[in-house]
Structures are given as C-alpha cells and as structure tokens.
C-alpha cells in the first residue's frame, strides 16, 4: 500500500510538466540574482566608497532579500530534481531541526521570540538529508517570519506508528482549512483569507508539501485562535525496502 503510494507520487512528479516550467524559470532567475547578490555585497563592503548609516542599512536589506531569494531558487531546483537525485538514507530529524533553529538565532533574537523545543530520542526518518534541511528551513522560517514580536513558537516531535511527526505551532495568524486544501495550487494565495499572512505567495507551503509527499509522508495544517500549526510526518527509516524498485 505504502509502496504503491510512493510510486504514484514519483510518477506524478515525473509526469508533471510544470517541473519543466520551474526549471526554466529558475535558470532565468539565476543571472539577475547573481548580479543583485554580487553588487549588494560590493556596496555592503564599501568597494565603491563609504556609505552613510542609512545607505548601509538599505544595502543590508537588499543583501538579505537576495539571500532569501537564493534560498527559494535552491528549493525550487531541489523540487525539480527530486525524482532523479534523491539519496535516501536515515536522517535524524531532531539534530537537523536543532541546526535549523540555530541558523535562525539572529532573527529569533531580533523578534525576541521564544522557541519551545525539547529534543526527544526518536528513530531516524528515511529521506535525502538535503530534502529534510529544505523542509525544516521552510517550516521554521515561515513560522519565525509570521510570529508576532515577543511570542513563542512551540515545536514538538514524536513517534506515531511508522512515522516521526513534527508539529510547529505559532501565533502568527491562522491557516484556514480552505487554504490547506489548496496547498497544491502552486502560486495561489493559499493564505489569502488571512490578513496577517496575506503577503505569502504560497511557494513555501508548496515546497513543504512537495517534499513531504515525495517521501511518502503526510502534511496537515490547522488554524488555531490567532495562530496556526503545521504538522509533518515522515516515514521512519526501517521502510527502506519500500523505496526499492
């Protein structure tokens, strides 16, 4: 059953003509992004002369934005290559999660957020480590982005049957069930009814959904009072044989 589902997902990806559009778009984005990233870096290091405080601040924003864009492009490349390049192996979700949280320390500090997370001893999941990294980066980044200043983000992990489940809960606006059902609408405003998250393009959630589905996992989102939670379940690594042809 699970094997059949995985094969179906792989086939769906292989057949998805949209992947070609993603590949072409991503390639076209690389050159302008190289210029934005490179030139903002030169300005930031004052290669063209000294900047005043306001100019430095603005250039830092450009630089940060270009890095964010770069990460999105990397994610799209990752999604596009999933059917052909995944390296399945046991991955410790907790240690990857810890590492992803640490990479966001500056942002967490800037917004005075509290991350409530206690790592548990759990079996490894079966996935490509780079997919797990992409997945966790998008989930955690999104939560940090929308969480109000001074609020808390609760992260919990547990074993449920043949899956490791991770839930991330924040108070940065709700995700309605209607949106949850339209996650697959790649560039749709999946969070459009939610004013507090209306600037979301839906791309992050699409990337999350694509990765989770590809590995035979499950994704659920739920609206809470003033917040939302996202839960992903990834199969544990003793199901390795199910991926073999």
């Amino acid at each position, binding site marked *: 059953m699970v094997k059949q589902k995985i094969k179906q997902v792989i086939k769906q990806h292989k057949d998805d003509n949209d992947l070609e559009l993603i590949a072409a778009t991503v*390639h076209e984005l690389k050159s302008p992004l190289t210029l934005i990233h490179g030139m903002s870096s030169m300005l930031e290091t004052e290669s063209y002369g000294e900047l005043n405080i306001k100019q430095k601040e603005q250039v830092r924003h450009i630089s940060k934005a270009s890095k964010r864009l770069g990460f999105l492009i990397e994610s799209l490349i990752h999604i596009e290559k999933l059917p052909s*390049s995944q390296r399945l192996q046991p991955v410790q979700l907790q240690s990857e999660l810890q590492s992803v949280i640490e990479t966001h320390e500056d942002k967490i500090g800037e917004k005075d957020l509290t991350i409530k997370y206690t790592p548990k001893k759990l079996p490894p999941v079966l996935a490509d480590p780079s997919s797990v990294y992409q997945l966790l980066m998008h989930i955690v980044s999104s939560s940090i982005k929308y969480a109000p200043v001074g609020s808390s983000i609760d992260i919990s992990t547990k074993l449920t049957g043949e899956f490791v489940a991770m839930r991330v809960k924040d108070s940065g606006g709700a995700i309605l069930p209607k949106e949850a059902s339209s996650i697959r609408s790649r560039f749709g405003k999946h969070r459009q009814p939610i004013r507090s998250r209306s600037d979301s393009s839906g791309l992050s959630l699409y990337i999350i959904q694509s990765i989770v589905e590809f590995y035979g996992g499950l994704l659920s989102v739920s609206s809470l009072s003033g917040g939302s939670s996202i839960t992903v379940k990834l199969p544990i690594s003793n199901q390795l044989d199910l991926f073999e042809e």
Partner: protein
Amino acid sequence: MRILFVEDDVEIGTMYATQLVMEENDVVHARSAQEALDILDEYEFDLIVLDILLPGSNGIAVLQELRSYRDWRQIPVIVLSNVNPEDLEVSEQHLKDLGIREYLVKMDTTPQNLAAAVAAFA
C-alpha cells in the same frame, strides 16, 4: 596576475572584473569560447576564469581545446558558472582531468569570494 575572464553576460563579467581589477589584477574579458581562444593565441595569462554556458560552444569545449595545446596546458582554470557541477554531463573525474582547480557557483559567489579564490593562485 593576468586573468582571462570568459563570461558572455557583460554585466556579470563587469561586476566580477571590477573587483579583480581593484585587487590589482589585469583582466581581459572574452564573451565567447571562440573569442577566448583567439585572445589566448595572442596573449599570455596566469589564470582563466571560465563560464560553462557560452554562446556557440561551452566551457568544457574550451577546456578540451586548452588542454590539447602544450602552451596552454598549465594555465590554471577556475570555473565560475550557474550550472552546478552535478548537472554537467561529465564525471567529476573528467573535470579534474581537464585541470579545473576550483568550481564556483556564480549565484553563491560574490566578487570578493572570487577575488579571494583568485588570490590563492598568486
């Protein structure tokens, strides 16, 4: 250091070359594989920075040509491309055999990063 910079995108080439010149390198900019080979016929270089996707040909073809001439065989090459090495239809070993000393992905490489990589060859 005398550097031949092979890049078809003028703006990207200018951006990187500006930083390299600021760090006291001499940079000649070629915009195609053929132009690079023509320039190499006339001038000597200490290092080549080479893009992979070039009009009319590609960086791998340039490398193969380079390595087939004794005079050019020893020139170190840094590849600077937005094509990831794993996406090339050649093996990692083949890239090494072609004498690529460093492979940098443009999108992740600032002009300062490139200048630092170049400085390692001084």
